[in-house]
């Protein structure tokens, strides 16, 4: 009788790539929950839209590339990309923002480089940068925290706003984004930057009414949500500690140096850690295995490099948040980092 011939090892760990992706998606839930709690259901709508588009464009490109469809879709990487883009864009951004971003991420950044495992750049962040550069207005218009809404927004209102730009009552997104006292809402980092540019010091900004009216508390909570999700990922060993710790430590150290140098012009380390997309980036974006460094030393260096870029751009650059740029720039350095941080092979001496 003939037996099956196959290659060793015959025992394997039973965790697959798709399970990893699924775990990452599950760990995003606390952050997403908090985000939609503060900013309304628009966020969930964006996620629904972006994931649908991600799966559709993945299917389309796989047909064009004549690759197996079902098994590739099942790996969950396209879904994850879609969700990450949706989290990053403003909740009531027009529908085509999410569509363009997702299509670009899946087709251009991932599949045109050869599919899962081959892309140089993080698809979600590359798409975010594309959107930010191309559509700066839509991408920086955040709606205020729900408690500060001048109008009450129903689910239908939000769906309508997303697809037509107006609520059922005929208010435009721009109008929604303007809070009670007529100030345009933006992210705390945005607000701080604008105020800095107009010559105020940090302490003045933090005490100013427009800052207090901004969604800074909400953003802090959201960051906390992603931190919790990230810690679960660490506990489950889906991600390894090197990158998040290196990145967060880097952010703290670099921003502390800047803060110590001039506290009037530079925001504090704590503010850095809990604003913008710091936690999302540390645990969910930078740790994307495909585009991150793979050696131990390399991962630490990669995290620190990204942190340095983030702090530099946030403090002296032209954009309020810099995570996406930092990720892309660090991605570019990965082959170089990997090459120079190879571990010493057994027997090469210590």
């Amino acid at each position, binding site marked *: 009788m003939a037996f099956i011939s196959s290659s060793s090892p015959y*025992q394997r760990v039973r965790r697959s790539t798709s399970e990893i992706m699924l775990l990452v998606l599950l760990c995003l839930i606390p952050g997403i929950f908090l985000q939609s709690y503060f900013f309304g259901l628009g966020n969930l709508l964006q996620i629904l839209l972006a994931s649908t588009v991600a799966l559709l464009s993945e299917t389309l490109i796989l047909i064009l590339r004549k690759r197996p469809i079902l098994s590739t879709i099942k790996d969950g990487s396209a879904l994850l990309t879609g969700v990450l883009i949706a989290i990053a864009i403003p909740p009531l951004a027009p529908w085509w923002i999410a569509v363009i971003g997702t299509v670009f991420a899946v087709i251009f950044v991932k599949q045109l480089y050869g599919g899962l495992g081959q892309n140089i750049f993080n698809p979600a962040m590359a798409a975010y940068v594309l959107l930010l550069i191309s559509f700066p207005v839509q991408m920086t218009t955040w709606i205020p925290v729900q408690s500060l809404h001048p109008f009450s927004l129903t689910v239908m209102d939000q769906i309508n706003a997303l697809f037509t730009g107006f609520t059922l009552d005929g208010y435009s997104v721009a109008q929604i984004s303007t809070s009670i006292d007529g100030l345009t809402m933006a992210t705390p980092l945005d607000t701080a930057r604008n105020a800095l540019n107009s010559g105020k010091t940090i302490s003045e900004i933090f005490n100013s009414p427009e800052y207090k009216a901004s969604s800074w508390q909400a953003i802090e909570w959201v960051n906390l949500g992603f931190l919790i999700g990230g810690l679960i990922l660490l506990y489950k060993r889906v991600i390894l500690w090197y990158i998040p710790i290196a990145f967060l430590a880097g952010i703290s150290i670099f921003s502390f140096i800047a803060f110590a140098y001039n506290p009037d012009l530079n925001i504090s380390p704590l503010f850095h850690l809990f604003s913008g997309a710091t936690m999302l980036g540390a645990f969910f974006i930078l740790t994307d295995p495909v585009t991150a460094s793979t050696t131990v030393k390399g991962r630490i260096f990669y995290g620190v490099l990204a942190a340095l870029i983030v702090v530099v751009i946030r403090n002296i650059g032209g954009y309020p948040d810099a995570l996406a740029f930092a990720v892309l720039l660090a991605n570019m350095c990965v082959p170089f980092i990997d090459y120079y941080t190879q571990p010493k092979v057994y027997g090469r001496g210590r």
Partner: protein
Amino acid sequence: MTTTPINLLSEEQLAEISSGKHWSFHGGIHPQENKQQSSKAIIKDAGIPPFLVIAVEQKGESPLLLVNIGDSVLKGQALTKATDVMVVQNASSSGTVTAIEKRTDLHPSGLPVLSVVIATDGLDRSVEYSRCADYKAQTNTQLIEKIQNAGIIGLGGAGFPTHLKLAHYAAIKLLIINAVECEPYITADDRLMQEHGDEIIDGITVLQHILKPQLIVIAIEDNKPDAIAAIKRALQKKQSSQSANIIIRTIATHYPSGSEKQLIEIITGQQTPIGKHPSELGIVMHNVGTVFAIKEAIIDGKPLTSRIVTLTGEAFRKKGNVSVRIGTPIQYLLDKYEFTPTASQKLIIGGPMMGFSITHGDVPVTKTCNCIVAPTLQEMPESPPEMPCIRCGECAEVCPAQLLPQQLLWYANSKDNSKLDEYNLSSCIECGACAFVCPSHIPLVQYYRIAKAEISSAKQQAEKAEIARIRFEHRAARLQQAKLDRQVKHKQAAEKRKQQLQETNGGEDLIAAAIARAKAKKQATADPSDAPADNKKDAVAAAIARAKAKKQAAAEHSDAPADNKKDAVAAAIARAKAKKQAAAEHSDAPADNKKDAVAAAIARAKAKKQQALESTQINTEINPENSAAIAARKARKEQARLHKRQDLPAQIIDTTIAEPQTIDTTIKASDDKKTKIAAAIAKAKAKKIAQKDQ
């Protein structure tokens, strides 16, 4: 073989080791062990199978056989002769040698190697073993030779000849007994230690006598408490000055701690430098099974004729460890221990991490076969389809050699051998930890094995190419030299003649010579055709004369063709024709201008055919097999010819048939005589060759 050790362990390091400190290695995994399936039952004898297949080829080389087909052999009788590197293969039961042929080996490739097949008589009569209680009176060389004659190789799995490992006895500081058995499922060493602790300690003292190490460490994983206890008991029994420096080191269960290099790192904290042998550090390691075999060989005088094999996996009804005679067909074990195959059944030789699968049971148990795993599909499911590498780096985390498996995969896929070398593929120990953890189910080890095999064959080819280049250059130089030599010889000959001529004239004085020369000159002007005027002319004339004489001789003998080159061309054409038959024969003809050559060639071809026919007949008488081969070749040629013909349009065939006649007639018309002569020569030649062959 002897290396000059430079990194020997120092006294402090040895003290540190014996004080109980131990280290760890990078990476590693914790697979499911499943050892309890087979570790409880005591070792049974598997019995005598109806026939034994003992592979005698070692590393691709066949040793000198000491038996012939039909010989009756006894258990323990040597089948092969030992050479420097090869150990003796002994018969593992008594019986008759029924065949010496290539049989499938217990090797992942399933390829056959030269084997001796013994039909057993069931009596298990053995040669007389000479017990030797006082081995200490013997020299190391004698003991090592005894081990070689007992056919002992490393029984842990790699199968490195033990006598070679022992040959480095000069500078050994630390002897490690590898009883780690880190592979899941396998319990052969575990059981052996539980049941034969005393013998193992005896074996260790034999090794201690040969190697004289300062320290002996028995390394056992902590998942074998019974074995540890047994060895401890045995050691206490032996409590004497000898066992003072033998320590038992219990190490944490952690795959692949049983790998030689990793175990050395655990015990000593030292890494074996790349491309170096552990003996460089003054360390030698022996498997506990090997130690047991050494004890039997030296003290009891028994050669290695059986080994302990773990039969495990849910598809075996009767699991456990059995003592199996080397050469027992695995099918016999499967039948005896109630193996019930399930859907898509696998049969794994060795452990599930580093073992290999075999496709059928008609292979013999060899000395390195420590375990047969027959898992059910639930136990070890088929690996899910391979997905793209997401560079998660899990593999690098667990790699005990601290390689970057994801980079190696990349370069293995792109067949970039220089990059693979740069990333130290050769340091891979193929432990399978990377593939074990890979979430994309990539069979990394398989890729590395293929890449390694390709690299080694590329290396071999490069070496071969280099040799070929050197040989080619030597040959070119030699031919050039021969040409020069010929020229020099000719020159020398010419000069010699010159001298001779001078000598004949040399008796007279110079003036007379000058006068004579002047006279000769005058004469030469008068009669230029005959008397040479000066030496140069003379030489030329001589040469011409020689040439003429040669020609004449050639004509007379009517044998040697005037021009070798022409002959070669003609011969080549003739051969081509003989091969291509009439149609091809003809298309060649117009290409050749010299009609006589053509005719000669045709004639020769005919003669050759005849000769071929004759030789076939001769061969039929001498060697039936060969004639069959020739017949097959002929048939193939005929087929090819027919095939060609079918391809050709009818017209071409017509013309090709028509043309030879026209040519023949033209030849006949113009040069009838020459043709006939040439043909005659050719026929004569053919006849001669035919006669010679007879």
